[in-house]
């Protein structure tokens, strides 16, 4: 009799674990709201010398306290590529709200004259399902600028 009760108890624990886990997984799965919005993008230096600095000013709104990771790359017109330092944060450093951020990036001296682009690919994650299974992504930000002149 007590064995039967124990059996029922175990069955109850296992079933509630299954249902609870799947319920939480569903709750997290259904959440696809991107936590960061870019309101405005302004290229302060539309023309850059090779070896010079590219300055971009963005107005960013943080609506959720989530982890962010942005891969940033520079491409030039002659297939050169430079990876910039990633943006990594566990929570928005200044908290929620709207902020203006200015990026100052070095354009490499081997970039050749022509159309160049700055690309930012953001990946956000607000819960464990995002982190390990299905991250929140947005279309990458492409900011075009011109490289002109010689390095020195």
């Amino acid at each position, binding site marked *: 009799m007590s064995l039967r009760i124990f*059996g029922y108890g175990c069955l109850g624990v296992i*079933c509630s674990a*299954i249902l609870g886990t799947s319920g939480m997984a*569903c709750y997290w799965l*259904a959440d696809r709201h991107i936590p960061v919005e870019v309101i405005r993008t302004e290229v302060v230096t539309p023309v850059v010398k090779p070896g010079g600095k590219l300055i971009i000013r963005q107005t960013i709104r943080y609506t959720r306290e989530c982890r962010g990771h942005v891969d940033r790359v520079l491409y030039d017109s002659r297939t050169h590529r430079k990876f910039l330092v990633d943006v990594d944060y566990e929570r928005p450093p200044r908290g929620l709200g709207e902020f203006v951020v200015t990026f100052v990036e070095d354009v490499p001296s081997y970039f050749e004259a022509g159309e160049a682009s700055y690309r930012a690919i953001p990946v956000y994650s607000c819960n464990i399902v995002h982190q390990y299974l299905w991250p929140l992504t947005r279309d990458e930000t492409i900011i075009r600028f011109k490289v002109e002149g010689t390095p020195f």
Partner: protein
Amino acid sequence: MSQSYRPPRGDENVRTKGPRVPVESFGEGMRACMQLPDRGIGEDQLERVRQEVRHDPVYLGENAQVVAFPPHLRRLFASMSEPDVDRFEKLLALDPKTIVWISEKNTKELTNLDGAVEFITSSRTAARVLMWVCGTAVAFVGGVVALTKSGIDMFSIIRGGK
């Protein structure tokens, strides 16, 4: 048999016409004093059995040609009802190996067998419950994924504008 048994003679106590002969009366007198021995063979045995059978539930009549079974078997047959006969036939139809196997078991083992069967049945029920729960969970998760991919957030109501 306590009483001696004398087969009925058709002509008993019927005096035919004729002179009274001392020899006949002498014979009768002798017969009156004598106790005939119990005869257990042949016609007498048959008649004895007929006497016993007369009160059986199935009685085929006075002139039946059937020889009855011994009393213990007659008692068995008389005590069996229709469902009992079906059960009896099922018992006979059992595999001899089954009967040997059961006869080798003692009471404790047979009670444990009950417990084992109960354990198996309850395990199967538990497995069925788990199957249903897992099926429900998988269906729920699949549904939420499908809805999410098409842009609908099922939990937006309880999420409260996060």
